[in-house]
């Protein structure tokens, strides 16, 4: 390796270790992350496509703006951040490790000058007596000291929470652990969605990446229900689910209620209450006002169709018995909305056995008589399905991060050195954080040392 190559490598290494790179990456990540909160991500809604020009659409697509958090440049920035974290740790950790495992136990003259909390106490008594007294006080007030003898003087060294120096590296490590968890999840897990009609079972899931995944078991929806508050706001969406192995209910997974915020997990796959709906078929007839020439019209639940005059009709709601809503009337009924040629929308109710009432709607149905015949309707439940074997790694990372941040901010490595000679006690100390608090502690400790050493002098 030539000197040039070496310095080239060295400067690249220094670049990856630098805080300047950290600052650049954090600020850049903060700024570019905004893009994905303004530009829609994933499947683009039709309303958005209408507002954007073709050129812009192509540009955004080419730049990966519609899936920016998985784009190569976003991943590159996250990778650079990871390299930055690792490089910083490799550079600084060995020295920190040495500070923790091989502490300086003797306060020499050079070391003494670096300490801001330094006091010399003049007292009487020989070194070994003083040593024992100071050791006892240190043990009671701070931590058990390590005693070394050199050049006729005794050196006492005591420290607290030296490992708190590692906390910041634990936080850095936690970021990497979370990334690893996320990678495991995206490689070995999947997210999908299933709709299960009441009474039916489903054994395959369509994943978000449009792959069909065989669950290896089946899930049956026994029942789906919605409960409401008195003011009409939804209170609870509930599916009763049964897990089936070879068509047989599994012990403990029979008729399990699943609500929002309370999912069902079986064999590492979790089912979350996510949506619901109705489906079924409804029959209507269209005839002349007197009932002649009837034609059948089938509309799906919440579906739409065309009337003979070309206007659209949407089926909103049906009931097998209208008397619950309109006392005095009876039989099945359907609420529909018709989009009239003049652009107006008209909402009305079509009955199964009340042609007189139905005739009142003739103006909206092109002069034809629309009647409801009835239909069959099922509720279905929409379940989000997720398998994520990396999630525990992510939680371990989060825990490490929270504990690490706490320790990094609020715990300090405090060290105290004492040199005991005949008639002189020199006390010094330092702290990795919260210098102010440590200074107050040191002042109190020195006062106590002075008091106790001099009071025992006079005995």
């Amino acid at each position, binding site marked *: 390796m030539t000197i040039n190559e070496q310095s080239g490598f060295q400067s690249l290494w220094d670049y990856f270790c630098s805080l300047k790179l950290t*600052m650049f990456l954090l600020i850049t990540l903060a700024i570019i992350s905004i893009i994905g*909160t303004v530009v829609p991500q994933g499947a683009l809604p039709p309303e958005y496509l209408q507002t954007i020009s073709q050129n812009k659409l192509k540009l955004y697509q080419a730049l990966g703006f519609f899936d920016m958090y998985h784009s190569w440049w976003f991943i590159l920035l996250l990778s650079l951040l990871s390299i930055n974290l690792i490089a910083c740790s490799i550079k600084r950790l060995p020295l920190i490790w040495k500070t923790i495992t091989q502490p300086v136990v003797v306060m020499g003259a050079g070391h003494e000058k670096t300490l801001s909390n330094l006091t010399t106490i003049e007292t009487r008594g020989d070194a070994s007596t003083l040593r024992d007294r100071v050791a006892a006080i240190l043990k009671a007030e701070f931590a058990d000291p390590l005693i070394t003898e050199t050049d006729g003087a005794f050196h006492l060294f005591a420290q607290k929470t030296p490992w708190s120096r590692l906390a910041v590296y634990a936080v850095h490590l936690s970021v990497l652990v979370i990334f690893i968890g996320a990678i495991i999840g995206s490689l070995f897990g999947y997210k999908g969605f299933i709709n299960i009609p009441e009474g039916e079972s489903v054994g395959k899931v369509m994943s978000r990446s449009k792959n069909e995944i065989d669950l290896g078991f089946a899930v049956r929806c026994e029942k789906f229900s919605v409960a409401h508050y008195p003011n009409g706001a939804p209170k609870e969406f509930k599916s009763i689910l049964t897990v089936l192995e070879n068509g047989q209910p599994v012990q403990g997974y029979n008729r399990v209620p699943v609500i929002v915020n309370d999912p069902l997990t079986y064999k590492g796959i979790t089912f*979350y209450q996510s949506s619901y709906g109705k489906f079924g078929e409804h029959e209507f007839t269209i005839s002349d006002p007197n009932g002649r020439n009837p034609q059948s019209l089938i509309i799906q639940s919440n579906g739409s169709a065309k009337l003979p005059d070309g206007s659209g009709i949407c089926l909103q709601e049906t009931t097998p018995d209208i008397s619950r809503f309109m006392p005095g009337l009876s039989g099945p009924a359907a609420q529909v909305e018709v989009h009239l040629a003049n652009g107006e929308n008209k909402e009305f109710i079509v009955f199964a056995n009340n042609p007189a009432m139905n005739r009142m709607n003739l103006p909206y149905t092109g002069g034809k008589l629309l009647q409801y015949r009835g239909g069959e309707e099922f509720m279905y439940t929409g379940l989000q399905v997720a398998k994520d074997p990396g999630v525990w790694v992510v939680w371990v990372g*989060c825990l490490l991060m929270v504990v690490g941040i*706490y320790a990094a901010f609020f715990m300090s490595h405090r060290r105290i050195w004492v040199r005991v000679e005949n008639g002189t006690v020199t006390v010094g100390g330092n702290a990795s954080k919260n210098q102010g608090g440590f200074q107050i502690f040191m002042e109190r400790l020195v006062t106590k040392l002075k008091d106790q050493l001099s009071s025992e002098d006079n005995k």
Partner: protein
Amino acid sequence: MTSSLLFNITTFAYLVSMLCFFAFVASRAKVLGTAGSAIAFGGLLLQTIAIGLRWKESYSLGIGHAPLSNLYESVVFFSWTIVLIYGLLDLKYRYRVIGAFVMPFALLGMAWAQLGLDSGIQPLVPALQSNWLLYHVITCFLGYAAFAVACGISIMYLIREIHERSTPANDQSIVATFPSGRVLDDLNYKSIMIGFPLLTLGIVTGAAWANYAWGTYWSWDPKETWSLIVWFIYAAFLHARITRGWAGRRAAWLSIVGFAATIFCYLGVNLLLSGLHSYGG
């Protein structure tokens, strides 16, 4: 006594407290500073009772839940956490004048909530029916509040710096009551030291809840992304502390930008963007 009346009195107390602090800055009369913080503490106590009372009232309505479920309740809670964090800082460091730059945030929140937002107690929608709501909202808002305090302190730092550059320091100047630039820089850091772990906890509890309720701990929803943006900015702030040339003025600006991002994360995302947090928490 209803919670609504108590919230009105609280708003008034915060107004008086803020005016006392302003008068303190202008007159340098110590008694005004003491009055300002005493009234702020009184208001905090009233607001605490009012929040408890609103909680109880929701149970009397048969829809009992912690008062953290809509925009009104979250703004009120945000004000409460701002005064709480300011109070803790005041008890520990006794720099009264900081109140002049923090109480306006608390007052703004309360005034907006009382005058402009629907204060009705609504039943909890299914998505929010979880204990995670409590942990998530409390940690997030305590974090936001610490950032609000840091922002106030940073504004003081910048005012002091601009003022000192134009006029030589003297006892009559408007910044005479301010702590020194070094102390302000340190207090800015200390506030963010409180806020950052809480924001981290807030994001983690949010992720845990999302994973529990929806099966994804992170889905790049605008609210999630903005909380991460805020986290990046304050992470940059913390690293700025140990980078040469980034302490002082640049740190103050980062703190202000961080709080602006926090407010956008809290309000802007709900009012301007669409996503999973549309109920306003």
